[in-house]
């Protein structure tokens, strides 16, 4: 409609009714930006001309804080980097520190870490699914997602006592062993959960309105995705194998069977499909890990004060729920890191937002933003 009017105006060369750029501030307080992200959107009628993300509203300088904390103390702050998927970030830091100091965690601890990270991936993807559907306008999947996430959080709380910021995965092991009835409860949850995925798919996947809103919207081409640093499920939606669990295996991911979920279209719908399939894969990984869980110690033998060797450095990567999570640590011979850098998936994924939304409608910003699975604390750190 607006396009039609505009084309008529432009025919006469010098336009009589000039059209202005319509600048709208989406955020920092806006229902669809999942926190305090601010987008300055330049509109031409309903069509987006430019989207400029303004970051930093949640910047807490966790990297600076970590330079002034001991290595174990840093773990409590990694919880706050991505509080929707805190276990993964816990582990990302613990892995980097272990590599830096040559610590090998015992087998039981490794299996426990895998179970908890995959449960966390389920919880994170569930929240994502709800928020994505909510952005598009379906409010009910959000409640369904949170309902199942609640049961995962119950499992976490039963084990480590917290529901959001766990501080559970420690350097050289885990905080505390699981309770005896954890395994049975976990299996009961998985049995309950698997049919629920079908239910979400019934509700959303082939819903014609959902297809209209997501198919062909926000296409990340493979070349552009790699070049712009998109990672994780968002890049796998474009047909690139980029799962760190497969390419640079950590924990015991090389000992369990799981498929890397890849879709080729690169639009919002393929990113949705990738995450839905990943949930099923996570369920299978948890089942396999629970089977291979054997009694044993849960913490490696370590000196009472952990010190990194002088001039040591490490860059280790894991596949967090949102994509590639890298931790870069530089040790200077003391108990505190000289430099800690967290490379977060949301930060690099958000970069492509402007290119993906240019020329689309306002409503597509929400769909694309939702499908990128962005978490503001991870962007700002």
């Amino acid at each position, binding site marked *: 409609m607006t396009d039609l009017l505009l084309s008529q105006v432009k025919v006469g060369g010098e336009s009589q009714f000039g059209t202005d750029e319509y600048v709208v501030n989406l955020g920092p307080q806006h229902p669809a930006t999942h926190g305090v992200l601010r987008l300055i959107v330049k509109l031409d009628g309903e069509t987006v001309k430019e989207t400029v993300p303004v970051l*930093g509203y949640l910047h807490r300088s966790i990297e600076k804080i970590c330079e002034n904390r001991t290595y174990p103390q840093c773990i409590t702050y990694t919880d706050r980097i991505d509080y929707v998927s805190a276990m993964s970030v816990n582990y990302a830091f613990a892995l980097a520190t272990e590599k830096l100091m040559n610590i090998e965690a015992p087998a039981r601890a490794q299996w426990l870490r895998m179970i908890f990270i995959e449960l966390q991936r389920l919880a994170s993807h569930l929240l994502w699914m709800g928020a994505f559907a909510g952005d598009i306008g379906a409010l009910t999947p959000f409640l369904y997602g949170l309902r199942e996430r609640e049961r995962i959080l119950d499992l976490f709380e039963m084990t480590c006592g917290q529901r959001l910021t766990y501080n559970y995965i420690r350097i050289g092991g885990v905080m505390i062993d699981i309770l005896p009835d954890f395994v049975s409860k976990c299996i009961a949850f998985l049995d309950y959960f698997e049919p629920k995925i079908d239910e979400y798919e019934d509700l959303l996947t082939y819903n014609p309105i959902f297809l209209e809103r997501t198919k062909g919207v926000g296409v990340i081409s493979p070349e552009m995705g790699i070049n712009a640093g998109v990672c994780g499920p968002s890049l796998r939606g474009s047909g690139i194998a980029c799962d760190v669990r497969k390419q640079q295996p950590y924990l015991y991911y090389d000992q369990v069977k799981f498929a890397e979920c890849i879709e080729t279209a690169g639009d919002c719908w393929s990113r949705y499909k990738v995450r839905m399939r990943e949930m099923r894969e996570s369920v299978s990984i948890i089942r396999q890990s629970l089977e291979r869980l054997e009694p044993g110690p849960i913490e490696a033998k370590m000196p009472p004060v952990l010190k990194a060797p002088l001039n040591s450095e490490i860059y280790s990567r894991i596949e967090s729920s949102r994509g590639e999570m890298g931790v870069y640590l530089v040790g200077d011979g003391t108990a505190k890191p000289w430099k800690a850098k967290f*490379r977060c998936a949301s930060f690099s994924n958000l970069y492509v937002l402007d290119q993906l939304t240019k020329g689309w409608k306002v409503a597509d910003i929400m769909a694309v933003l939702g499908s990128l699975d962005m978490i503001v604390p991870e962007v700002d750190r």
Partner: protein
Amino acid sequence: MTNEELKSKIEVDFKNDIQTVIISAQKEAIVTVSPEHYVALCQKLCEEKEYFFNHLSSLTAIDFPKENKITVVSHLWSYKHFHQLTIKVVADRSNPKVATLENIWKSANWFEREVFDLYGVVFEGHSDLRRIMMPDDYKKFPLRKDFADDGFIVKPS
């Protein structure tokens, strides 16, 4: 390629460009490159078939006030060959200037803005070098070691 192979190959291929290439105690290949060859080296590493580092995983900086230098560190990853490489380039701390990698990997855009914001490293040729985390009128560089965190802590009344 394993890191040792990577090291020996880089030593041969880029004899003139690089300063040192080492395998660290943590088994990572680390290349230190002189500032003038920085972009050319990265361009080759990105495009040549044997290396094919198509993914810039991370770009950050380390502050060394005693040596009066800021090292810009980038971590490369290849989705094809599954190998990892660390590239370091040293800048003068009082007037840090490094060439931008934005024209090779677009993802460097925001990483470099972040380093500019928090360390004050100026990336020459960058298309949009503004502060990204801190307010635009902010004067200090928070991640430098001499940054004083004065007056931000609210004590309970």
